[in-house]
């Protein structure tokens, strides 16, 4: 039994892909913010990346089985933290999402995402049959449902939504049966439908969330409100053309027409300045990242490791899908950042911790 995995056991390809994505992010954050009041933001992002890398390596050294053993305690900590946010949390942009930790405000819900990945991995790993029973499915649903409800209460629709694919992908890999899938799909369709159906949505969504939905459906009615953001993003992307306007030359980006161009809409700024060729590169890297994660899952030593890796893949994949679809105006504004390209401390740390779990699984694939 080999206790300490060597450095060659790390997935260097995966790290290379991550580094490339981070580099694109830092470059575009620089382009979007230099010379403005936000000058220097790219260096802050680099700092977060360093912290993330350290945390990633740290987490990779800790046997994931030990982490899975503590799933219940982590889950309780997560729930308590979410309640604490609701009670003591720091309000920014009209939502209580932040708790002060080490002098920085951390979004607790990012941490909770990680915890749910761990908890679901543990839960699905314990399912013994190849087919997921309805009973287990409901249990898993409840496990996700409680934190999800708490996060919605902050309110943070985006992060709450990210919990859903964790459940869906997990359940699918745990042997979800087709008729259950059909029922879940139906419920899902109804739920999404109700969000778009005003008489129902007014009971479950905040006014600003409903406004986003409305402006997504009818952007022309509200060209200067929420629909404005989507329209400006599409203009930025479209005006970039195939070759892009060049680094630092995107007028939509440089003149501030793209909303939060260094964070949620960074892909919009990138697409404007680098064009379709740049998009091809960025999305190619994300595809490589996700496929590499699936490959790691396929080679995991055990079911629990596979679920951990696929939880991470599900979370990152969903982030990419929802964020990029928003940038091209195919989905409403949800506030979900693009992993590793968008500026943001908590989100960056979450990704690196998640990758730390993946490394952890990979390092131990030959152990025993």
């Amino acid at each position, binding site marked *: 039994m080999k206790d300490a995995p060597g450095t060659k056991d790390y997935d260097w390809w995966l790290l290379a892909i991550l580094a490339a994505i981070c580099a694109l992010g830092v470059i575009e954050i620089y382009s979007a913010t230099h010379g403005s009041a936000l000058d220097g933001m790219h260096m802050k992002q680099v700092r977060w990346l360093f912290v993330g890398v350290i945390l990633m390596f740290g987490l990779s050294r800790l046997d994931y089985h030990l982490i899975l053993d503590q799933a219940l305690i982590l889950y309780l900590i997560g729930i308590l933290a979410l309640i604490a946010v609701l009670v003591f949390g720091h309000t920014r942009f009209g939502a209580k999402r932040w708790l002060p930790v080490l002098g920085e405000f951390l979004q607790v819900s990012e941490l909770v995402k990680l915890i749910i990945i761990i908890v679901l991995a543990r839960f699905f790993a314990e399912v013994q049959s190849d087919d997921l029973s309805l009973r287990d499915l409901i249990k898993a649903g409840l496990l996700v449902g409680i934190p999800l409800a708490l996060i919605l209460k902050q309110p943070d629709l985006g992060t709450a939504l990210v919990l859903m694919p964790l459940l869906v992908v997990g359940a699918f890999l745990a042997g979800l049966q087709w008729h259950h899938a059909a029922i879940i799909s139906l419920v899902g369709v109804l739920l999404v439908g109700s969000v778009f159906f005003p008489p129902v949505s007014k009971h479950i969504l905040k006014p600003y969330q409903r406004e986003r939905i409305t402006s997504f459906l009818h952007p022309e009615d509200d060209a200067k409100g929420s629909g404005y953001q989507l329209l400006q993003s599409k203009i930025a*992307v*479209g005006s970039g053309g195939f070759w892009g306007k060049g680094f630092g030359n995107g*007028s939509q980006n440089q*003149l501030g027409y793209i909303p939060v161009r260094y964070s949620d809409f960074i892909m919009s700024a990138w697409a404007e300045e680098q064009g379709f060729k740049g998009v091809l590169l960025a999305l190619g890297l994300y595809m490589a990242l*996700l496929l590499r994660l*699936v490959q790691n899952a396929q080679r995991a030593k*055990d079911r*629990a490791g596979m679920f951990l890796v696929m939880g991470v893949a599900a979370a990152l994949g969903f982030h990419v899908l929802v964020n*990029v679809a928003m940038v*091209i105006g195919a989905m409403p504004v949800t506030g979900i950042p693009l992993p590793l390209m968008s500026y943001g401390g908590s989100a960056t740390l979450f990704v690196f911790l998640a990758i730390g779990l993946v490394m952890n699984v990979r390092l131990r694939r030959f152990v025993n």
Partner: protein
Amino acid sequence: MSIWFRNDKRLPQARLAVVSYVIVGMIGVLLLGFWKLQVIDSDKYGQLAERNRVRSIPIIAPRGRMLDRDGRVLVDNYPSFSVLLLRDDPALVEKNLPAVADGLGISISDLRDELANTKNLPKFQPIVIKPEATKADVAFIESHRADIPLLEMLMVHRRRYLPDAFMGNTIGYVGEVSEQQIEDSNGKFRPGDFAGKTGLERQYNDQLIGTDGMRRVVVNSVGKEVGRLSTQEAIPGKQITLTIDYDLQMIAEQSLGQRPGAVVALDPRTGEVLAMVSRPTPDPNDFAVQISKDEWRKLNEDPLHPLLNRAIQAQLAPGSIFKIITGTAMLEDKVPPESFTTFCPGYATFYGRQFKCWVLSSKTGPRSHGTTNLHDAILKSCDVFFYTVGMHLGIDRLAYYASKLGIGHKTGIDLPSEEPGLMPSPEWVERVFHRKWYAGETISVAVGQGAVTTTPLQLARTIGGIASGGVFKQPHLLKDAQNVGEERFQISDSTVEKITDAMYGVVNEPGGTGGHLKLTGIELSGKSGTAQVIGYSTRDRVGKQKKFEDNAWFVGYAPKRNPEIVVAVLVQESGQHGGEASGPVVRDIIKTYYDKKNKKTNGQYTVELEHRDLDGDGGVSHPEANTSPTSAAGSAKPAHAVVAHAAAAPAAATIAPQVALKREDTAPTAAAREDKDSPPH
């Protein structure tokens, strides 16, 4: 704690493979989305981005000025600032609203209403909260740039006309272009542009208007200017010089006073219009910023039709002025012969109907003209004589001469909407009323009654042309007009001699209807006309009413042959004879003309200016004339006050008008501006 899951090796490889495909599919779909935006629709979004980035700010070109024939400014511009409110930051607007309202003297509720009304405009588009900033407003904005960064000023040029509606209807006014004008302009006009609507402003709009410039700037998402692309300077409109003589115009305005009517003064040698007045007239300054709907409606519904330029649009019976045409026709046709005389007992009977001569209802003197020849008939304006001449001539000959002398045709003056008047004829009644010409109509037409109508301008041109031996110059207002039209109608010298002798006699011989107008040293000639609005019998039936009062005409000129100036004056519904109501206006203008001319050439006066009380003849009060010299000098309207003074005090008469308006190089800005700020007068 169960540890069995540590060794569970069952991996769902098939389902993991499915997830891989889903990932590839997802990225593929996203790329398709980018392909659509960045490759297929790239041009469209490129344009949208450019429209975001670049804002075009118009630089308004000032309209050309209008000068009188001596270079004195008649129409000018003044820079005016509109106060703009920038609304990019609603919170900032909300916070500073009370301070803004207070500083600019606008009620805060009005301001809020304005904001609510413009809620749907893009936020970066500023709104005008005060169209005319005062000096205090400008100071307020400048001194609070740092703490209230919401206010901006936009410079526009507004039209400034002389006060008291000077030349109102002739100059016209400007206003925002109509949708029709925008459509017809081939993209030259944009909504919100100003263009001439009537009068000279409209006629010479193309010269006056200039070309707006454009500043193209780069703006960021909050509308802040961050760079400049290019600037196309505005090209100011061309200045035009008019044929109008300010001095004559001023006298004409003063002399007509507020009586409804019109004055036209022409130089028959060139066709130049020296003065043109129409009363009543709206003040074009009222249109320079924006006229309220209410005021506009009032102007349109006013029974006196103040928007009508009576000098070219009033089509009225010329009355006895027409006798000059009938007389000319008689001499030229030799039917009846020159020696023809009639006996006037105060009336005559034709075709079984009795036609009265005006002398029958004369309040003083004899009630008949006795035996008259052509000369006496013109002098005394005997109707019976011309009734008879008309009968002998017949309508066809009369219509032929009238038409050749300009009746029933537009003069072609460079003003929009000139009316042609009407010379009736058998063809005309056939066409319009589908009936035969009644012989009795000829009798009325021969003395300028019945269906015949003329405009004041037409009469000035016709009488001036006859006195010039049949040369009719096209009247015009633009000094350096190209290709001035000219019509010639051969009139024999003896005819001209006899007709002009008679018209000289009207003023200068005993018994002439214009005897009171006589000016020493000036060959003032002319003809009065008192046109009935309704027939004598109808008047007897309905009783005396203001709106059925006679129209008083007088057309005068000097000198007797080949005149330098001809003046036609119409005073509507005055209830007086033409010579009484309109004659003095003609005399005043012609006297001023000679005073000015002689001072220019000899440096001395040739005539004594008679004192004339402006209030005396019309029964309409003229407040300007009563302004005492001292109060006039101190008033905010120097130009008018001095001239009013001039009318009352002979010595100052010819000097005052020239100094009243400063020369072009010292534009009358200060005086007129002061006037703007002073309380309504």
